[in-house]
């Protein structure tokens, strides 16, 4: 199916990009995962990418259900291994655009090692890693991202482990595109996901997503409004953060110091695995 059509409304978008029979999503009320799907589709639409040239890959978990809703080829793989399947697809056919949906449990916990090495190789793919601080689908166990003190079924008295900063890991491994967003505002993540898809090399977009069911309720954020509000109050745009840290008053600095920085954390160029591989092939040809 050729999809080089420019939808203008959500109704048109869903007709072009979604598997109607799979809808509505299985996600709970107030879950931000549907937003991630929504923003990704708007980003694809902005780029006017032919869906026949895109493959969606995911692992296991609530966020990994996302690939199944898109009317494109995709793979719903094993827990933590989405990036390995994605690397295989990209290596076999470098012309395809590969987009991975994974979660913090799937991508950074169980698949942490794959995350590390796929970034290190600089595989040309876009990884939309949804961080909701918890293993949602498997019953609310703590994840490597659960904040200190966070309550989960496996940390009923509060988590004592330091959480992992996924973007910092990607930055350390020199991924050419790294961004973090909340789902509270649609336009910045839509633009950023489009940038990530257009980027040659590894693009990591960490989406901070409210999970009212497995995380919010247990952690004093009961109901849809409370948990969405938490993300609004506890994040700060990177540009604002830097501006306040330079020019703001001590009180203003104190107020934002603990907040999570959202924005494009890096946007640079770095030769991808595919490019280096193609060069090598050229070089050793008889």
């Amino acid at each position, binding site marked *: 199916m050729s999809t080089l059509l420019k939808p203008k*409304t*959500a*109704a048109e*978008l*869903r007709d072009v990009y*979604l598997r109607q029979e799979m*809808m*509505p*999503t299985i*996600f709970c*009320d*107030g*879950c*931000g*995962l*549907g*937003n991630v*799907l*929504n923003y990704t589709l*708007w980003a694809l639409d902005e780029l006017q990418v032919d869906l026949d040239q895109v493959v969606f890959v995911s692992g296991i978990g609530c966020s990994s259900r996302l690939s199944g809703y898109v009317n494109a080829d995709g793979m719903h793989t094993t827990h933590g291994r989405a990036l390995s399947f994605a690397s295989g697809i990209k290596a076999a056919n470098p012309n395809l655009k590969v987009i991975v949906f994974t979660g913090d449990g799937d991508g950074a916990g169980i698949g942490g090692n794959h995350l590390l090495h796929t970034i290190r190789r600089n595989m040309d793919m876009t990884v939309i890693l949804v961080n909701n601080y918890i293993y949602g689908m498997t019953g609310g166990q703590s994840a490597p991202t659960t904040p200190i003190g966070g309550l989960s079924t496996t940390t009923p008295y509060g988590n004592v482990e330091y959480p992992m900063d996924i973007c910092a890991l990607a930055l350390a491994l020199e991924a050419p595109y790294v961004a973090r967003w909340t789902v509270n505002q*649609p*336009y910045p993540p*839509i633009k950023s996901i489009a940038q990530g898809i257009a980027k040659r090399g590894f693009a990591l977009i960490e989406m901070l997503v409210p999970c009212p069911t497995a995380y919010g309720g247990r952690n004093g954020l009961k109901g*849809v*409004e409370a948990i*969405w509000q938490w993300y609004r109050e506890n994040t700060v745009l990177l540009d604002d953060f830097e501006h306040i840290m330079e020019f703001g008053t001590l009180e203003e600095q104190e107020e934002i110091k603990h907040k999570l920085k959202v924005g494009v954390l890096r946007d640079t160029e770095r030769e991808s695995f595919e490019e280096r591989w193609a060069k090598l092939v050229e070089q050793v040809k008889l």
Partner: protein
Amino acid sequence: MEQTYNILIDERWCKGCKLCYIHCPTQALRIAERFSPRGIHPPELALVARCNGCRLCELLCPDFAITVTEEEEVALHG
């Protein structure tokens, strides 16, 4: 002449999560008292005059259930 808007809810997909209602910057939406066929209270446009067509509700809906449409322009009296 003033541009007015309407919102269309796809009641097959709306879960009644209220995210659209919570985030509408002009508080133009309300949650209906009636039940949708799915057994939830869907949102509806309560105050047509307030809706500025910003489409935030449409972009924020996790289930692609809202579409904002432009209405035929009508002459307002007074």
